[in-house]
């Protein structure tokens, strides 16, 4: 038992949802229409509408918030700050942590760390580390903290975390080789579905998450799981890189906009100071 939190009952469950007969048909409604239009109105190769905002966490050195409709992720970057370990290291270390908010999933998650969070944190590290110029930061640590506020698709959560962390690193002014954009895809009935929701994921035979640096045309990380043929995988990678390039352009625009806003603010403040002087 966790003594540091307010205790609830020893065990609790979600009630069984009982559907009326006529609603049953609606529940098993097909994932897409005959014209390949999904339930949320997009085609198979489209990502969900994205909303990205850098610099929302004022306490952090850099931060970003990203929303792919149902998937909502906040990320903060602290550092580079001095490493606590006394041993000398010529390279900086990157410390990534992903945390699910207790209310973010269908079932309540315990606030304690679980293996899935550990795994995702490690994947986030692997996707980002090749892009960050850690060789320029000896004896220092960069901390990347990600909180998933709402989960609508496990693959998209990881992809959104990677994208948000990359924007947050740029917002913190940490030197990188390129921005890392990430995209997830599922393989359902021999077709490739980009950026799946939780409901679509339930029907997937296999999935893939790809992290891609658009300007360098390099893949930093790829995770494939489930049953996909070799040719299918290669096609999925191609489609994912295309989607990543779209996300990449959104990231670039948002960062540019935030820098412009900062400069404007500085200019108006500078103007005020001049007037006062």
């Amino acid at each position, binding site marked *: 038992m*966790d003594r*540091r*939190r*307010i*205790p*609830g*009952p*020893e*065990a*609790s*469950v*979600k*009630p*069984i*949802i*009982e*559907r009326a007969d006529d*609603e049953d048909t609606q529940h098993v409604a097909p994932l897409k229409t005959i014209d390949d239009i999904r339930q949320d109105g997009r085609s198979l190769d489209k990502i969900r509408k994205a909303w990205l905002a850098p610099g*929302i*966490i*004022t*306490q*952090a050195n850099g931060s970003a918030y990203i929303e792919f409709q*149902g998937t*909502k992720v*906040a*990320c*903060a970057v*602290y550092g580079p700050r001095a490493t606590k370990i006394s041993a000398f290291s010529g390279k900086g270390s990157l410390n990534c*942590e992903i*945390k699910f*908010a*207790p*209310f*973010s*999933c*269908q079932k*309540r998650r315990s*606030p304690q760390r679980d293996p899935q969070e550990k795994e995702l944190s490690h994947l986030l590290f692997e996707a980002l580390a090749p892009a960050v110029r850690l060789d320029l930061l000896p004896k220092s640590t960069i*901390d990347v*903290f*990600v*909180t998933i*506020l*709402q*989960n*609508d698709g496990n693959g998209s959560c990881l992809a959104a975390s990677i994208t948000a962390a990359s924007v947050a690193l740029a917002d913190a002014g940490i030197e990188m080789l390129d921005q890392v954009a990430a995209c997830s895809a599922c393989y359902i009935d021999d077709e490739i579905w980009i950026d799946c929701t939780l409901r679509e994921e339930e029907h997937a035979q296999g999935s893939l998450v790809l992290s891609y640096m658009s300007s360098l045309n390099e893949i930093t990380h790829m995770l494939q799981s489930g049953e996909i043929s070799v040719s299918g995988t290669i096609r999925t990678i191609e489609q994912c890189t295309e989607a990543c390039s779209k996300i990449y352009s959104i990231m670039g625009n948002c960062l540019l906009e935030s820098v412009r806003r900062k400069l404007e603010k500085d200019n108006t403040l500078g103007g005020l100071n001049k007037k006062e002087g």
Partner: protein
Amino acid sequence: MSSTTENNNTKYTTENDQITSKSDEGNSNANKKETKFIVDADSIRRIQPLEYFRHFTDQKIRPNGRVFNRFRKTTLHLGSVTTADGSAVVRIGNTSVVCGIKAEVAEPNVNTPREGYLVPNVELSPMCSPNFKPGPPSELAQVLSETVNKLLKSSSVLSLESLCIEEGKAVWVLYCDVVCINYDGNILDASVYAVVSALSNVRLPKITYADGIVKATPDKTIELSLSRIPFSATFAIFNGEILADPDETEEVILEERITIICDEEGQLCSVLKSGGSSSTRETFSTCLELARNRYSVLSTIFKEASTSANTN
């Protein structure tokens, strides 16, 4: 006499010439430069934060530009986290918290067979401030959780018996988890506002109990009946002056704080005074008045957010 002043003047010029060797400006101008060099606001802020603060409060203003009894801009959004059964996003200035409520079913405690559970927890993750570390909840987080818990229980915001499904067999558990996104002071006000607003946003399904199995309808319609709606207001006390809604930099400097939590009728739910020296009774009554004013502001924001959440 005249010779001495002249001497002084010449002395001054040479000194100033040494300091501002580049500029060939007049005597008075150089003088100004010298004073500017001595009063460097930023270094005083770092070396003598309290002294720096006092310079501002003497002019009846705070370093962040607010007057003493001004709260920061507050916003509230209800129901934006769709995986939760009820949710609220609160921003007070830069401080932002999200509260999501998950409803589950459990067996009641043997001693209280008709009472459900209300489990509030505040999470201060390392994401929201550089001062928090990863790992189990810090002392501050534990104190906050307990304060919110006590407030909900002792001032009976929600009657736990209303969470009963079948006596002795099944009750609702409401997990109210507050996650801090950005920590810029006055977290207690934000947490209380978020928890209470999220409770008002909870919609539960209709439920049937038969032979140990609890079944729910897919659509969620039933609202909770809150018997009181408490909101909180925090003030920092500095040399007898009342500073409303302290931000993070002020919280570090000023230890003395008064929090007043009152309900819609202006009745007190909780009063907390922490740190610092003793306060007079007048300070308390002024705080109470300010807290009631604050309540009406929060209440208007709350009503607006509720109507916009219901129409969507």
